[in-house]
């Protein structure tokens, strides 16, 4: 019997999204991956580099994935009719865009690494478009994670120390918000660490501010559901 991955996909994910054609893996999913990078960057990019896993590199152009990736990376939604014009729009915005092939290892065929740089920060993500517009981001700025973009999420970059998870969880609980899932990883004990907190309802700006001002937090980012 094949191993079930028990990936819980909602009815609206299956019967959707509403998107610009022609391929949910290659247009919608890739646009959402680009969009994840844009949302984490949280400012207009100056440069975006896409490193495509070989199977995706072989097929991306015919499916308009180049338009979709760029469209997402400059902040367009998957159903934005301007997606076919995304590369031109990026040129007008004077965003430097580059595509290259890169073997990303034992991953889904449609996997891409995105490096994007804005005026004040840089972001790197690695993620797969697994079909039907559904995505799985498994690396953010070098940290292992599991981000699907299907719920509001808090991303936290901090210095690893005892009590950090409890403090963050307390601040979120004080908002009356339920944590759906929590994922932590770190590069080394006591060094750079990362926390992804998926929550059931939106987090207020004030709460984010409070989390940001915790000792040892380097950066915090709040992302809504990725459309």
């Amino acid at each position, binding site marked *: 019997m094949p191993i079930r991955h028990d990936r819980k996909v909602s009815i609206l994910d299956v019967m959707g999204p509403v998107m610009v054609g022609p391929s949910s893996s290659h247009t919608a999913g890739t646009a959402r991956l680009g969009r994840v990078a844009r949302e984490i960057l949280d400012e207009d990019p100056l440069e975006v580099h896409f490193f495509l896993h070989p199977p995706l590199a072989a097929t991306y152009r015919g499916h308009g994935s180049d338009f979709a990736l760029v469209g997402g990376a400059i902040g367009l939604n998957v159903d934005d009719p301007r997606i076919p014009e995304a590369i031109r729009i990026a040129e007008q915005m004077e965003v430097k865009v580059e595509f290259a092939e890169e073997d990303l290892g034992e991953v889904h065929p449609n996997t891409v690494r995105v490096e994007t740089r804005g005026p004040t920060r840089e972001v790197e993500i690695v993620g797969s478009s697994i*079909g039907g517009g559904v995505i799985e981001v498994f690396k953010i700025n070098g940290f292992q994670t599991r981000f699907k973009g299907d719920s509001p999420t808090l991303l936290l970059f901090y210095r690893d120390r005892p009590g950090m998870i409890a403090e963050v969880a307390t601040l979120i609980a004080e908002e009356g918000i339920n944590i759906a899932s929590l994922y932590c990883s770190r590069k080394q004990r006591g060094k750079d660490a990362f926390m992804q907190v998926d929550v059931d309802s939106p987090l207020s700006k004030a709460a984010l501010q409070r989390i940001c001002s915790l000792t040892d937090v380097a950066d915090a980012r709040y992302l809504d559901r990725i459309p």
Partner: protein
Amino acid sequence: MIESFKHLEELAKDHDLADVFLETDAEEHGVPAEDILEALRKRRQVMRDCIVRGKNGGESMGKLVGSEARLLNEAFLKGQTFLDPLTVKAEIYALSVMGENSRMGVIVAAPTAGAGGIVPGMLMALEEERHIDPEKTVRALVVAGGIGSIIALSANISGAAGGCQNEVGVASSMGAAGVAYMMGGTTRNSIQAAALALKNTLGLVCDPVGGLVEVPCVKRNALFAVHGLTAAQLALAGVESVIPMDEIVEAMVRIGRALPRGLRETAEGGLATTDTGRAIAQRLKDEANRRRAERAAERERMAQERKATGG
């Protein structure tokens, strides 16, 4: 969570199938049932708009398709088609949606864009031909989506993961369940319709010419919309699959894994590597290179201009 089709059948035996899906999905994903219905009403309208626009045809991005919906629609309007109107409309509508998709138009991925013509083709044709309340179609979209979400517990819904069976096969399976529901079938009828449709698409490979969602995808959607309708017809008459739906899904996953890489959306096998397929791929590549060179030249020209005016 609905664990399997067996579980679904127990759960929804004496209940409305759409209600069961709405209830469990709302619980699982935190989206209220009414919000799911409202989103699907909008998506039904996107499907409808797509069909209206797409009927007139138009050239695709890769220029390999474009006239299919228009040709069949014209023949239908002139009374020159021989199949019954429901079947012909299912084909026209599936072709219309896929035509729009191939022109980078706005569509509903159902469950994917490449298989996005099948569910609207079947459901919208049925709604029109049998004068079914559009709200019932919306609930059939819930059923179709719910069926897909159970399949997705085991399978990646993409041609790259398991070939076309994972896209067109799943779409016709979802659509067949939706049609059985719209025609007043039981939960068992819907699951059997899904099973019959999926079973008979197993092994279908994904070998798109030039890597585009055009050949064979566009016409295949029309043919598999009809396939789904016939599966629903069999199921409603009480014909049942010997192999249970859960096991069919398992078989699909195993077959998908066994498919060589060249037949999983890479355009490195099957139709894509026929003489004609290769010639088309070469032409597309040449055109893309030419366009890139033109864009580079245009950028260069603009940079020169800026320098001239700026200096």
